[in-house]
């Protein structure tokens, strides 16, 4: 198999890896906000359940969680759902990453001095206004480095989807390598992940620079 054929065969995998990455990133970054608020809910049982959810997501392997999402409905309820594979993968990734993002958000919220909220309150801002206009921008600045870390890990973690036979770059690399007895597919996959993360790091660095006009 020529290098060009190899690249062409792996290309659809690139698309699938990118699709999984972007969907997971967007959905888990948003879901994380809700998880953070639930985690800090004044209703004790809600906060307790959310804490357990975060603990389980962080305390068990993501690959295991993917298997549970995919096979759980059948083994637990006897349901077999057609075309469920990608949904299961996405659910597994989004719920796992949302737990991590929620904790990053929480640490960011905790690091904004209470005085900021008090100043907003005395000036008459509503709670919503204070959060959106005053607290949130400062939280974003504080958590960017931690979020960058997590997003870079996500790029690499998408390869775990091979456990559910998702035909991403990593899966295809393994298959082609086995069938062609060639090391080249692994090299190509490695270069692809590296370039993708380089782009992620570059974009996040731009964001950090854009917010560096002030110090806290």
């Amino acid at each position: 198999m020529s290098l060009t054929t190899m690249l062409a065969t792996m290309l659809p995998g690139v698309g699938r890896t990118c699709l999984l990455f972007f969907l997971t990133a967007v959905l888990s970054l948003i879901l994380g906000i809700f998880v953070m608020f639930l985690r800090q809910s004044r209703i004790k049982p809600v906060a307790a359940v959310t804490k357990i959810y975060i603990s389980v997501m962080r305390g068990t392997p993501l690959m295991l969680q993917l298997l549970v999402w995919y096979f759980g409905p059948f083994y637990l309820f006897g349901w077999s759902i057609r075309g469920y594979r990608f949904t299961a993968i996405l659910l597994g990734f989004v719920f796992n990453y949302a737990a991590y993002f929620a904790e990053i958000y929480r640490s960011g919220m905790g690091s904004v001095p209470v005085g900021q909220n008090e100043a907003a309150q005395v000036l008459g801002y509503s709670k919503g206004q204070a959060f959106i206009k005053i607290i949130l921008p400062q939280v974003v600045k504080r958590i960017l480095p931690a979020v960058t870390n997590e997003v870079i890990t996500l790029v690499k973690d998408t390869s775990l989807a091979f456990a559910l036979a998702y035909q991403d770059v990593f899966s295809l690399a393994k298959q082609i390598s086995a069938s062609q007895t060639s090391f080249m597919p692994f090299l190509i996959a490695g270069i692809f992940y590296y370039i993708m993360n380089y782009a992620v790091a570059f974009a996040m660095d731009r964001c950090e620079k854009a917010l560096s006009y002030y110090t806290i």
Partner: protein
Amino acid sequence: MTLLEMKGIHKSFGDLEVLKGVDLTVEKGHVVSVIGPSGGGKSTLLRCATLLETVDAGSIAYSGEYAVTMESGRAVYASPAALKSVRRRFGLVFQNFNLFPHWSVLRNVMDAPVSVLKLPKAEARDRAMGFLEKMGLADKAGAYPCQLSGGQQQRVSIARALAMDPEILFFDEPTSALDPELTVEVLRVIRSLAEEHMTMVVVTHEMSFAAKVSDHVAFMDGGVVVESGPAAQVISAPTQERTRKFLEGFNQL
């Protein structure tokens, strides 16, 4: 005319009773200084007055508009809408400024008038620039708080409070985070406000400032007002032993 009337204020944090029945009345155009040792309840009193802490008992009224009243032995706060209207009557300058670091100096001063008072932007900008000029900071309008000295930051925060057009302005140890030189520049601003008959309540450790600028001084210790009266009398001729001891400590330095 009475702008602020606090009566029988009690406040505990857990088992620690910080305020044990404090009264404070502020007349329009007066400057009241609250002095006393740390832990005496001065800041807590100010935080209760500005609704940052809830009182356990007592009443608070601004120009007759009640924020808290006593009903069958319990402190009852007014409705959120009523509290919102009460909040418009006062401003607060914090010890550590609490400027919004992600906004320019100008935005710090003009945003609340636009977002809260719904003033047109152009008008809010003109007014904000006016206050910054008054603070001697017009040239810093485009700067960010982190680029300013502590004294400049505190003057911006005074401008920010003034831009909301409060009837009464509270200062919570406004110079405690500043070195002596910067302290003077902030005290000078407060003094100029006093000359314009701005009603102010100042929690401070600056005794000579309190003596010169305020009409009225309240000495607080152990959660009660030990002594209060005309500034000259309380500071130069205190009648209470506790006040005398506290002020002697200052003079011995």
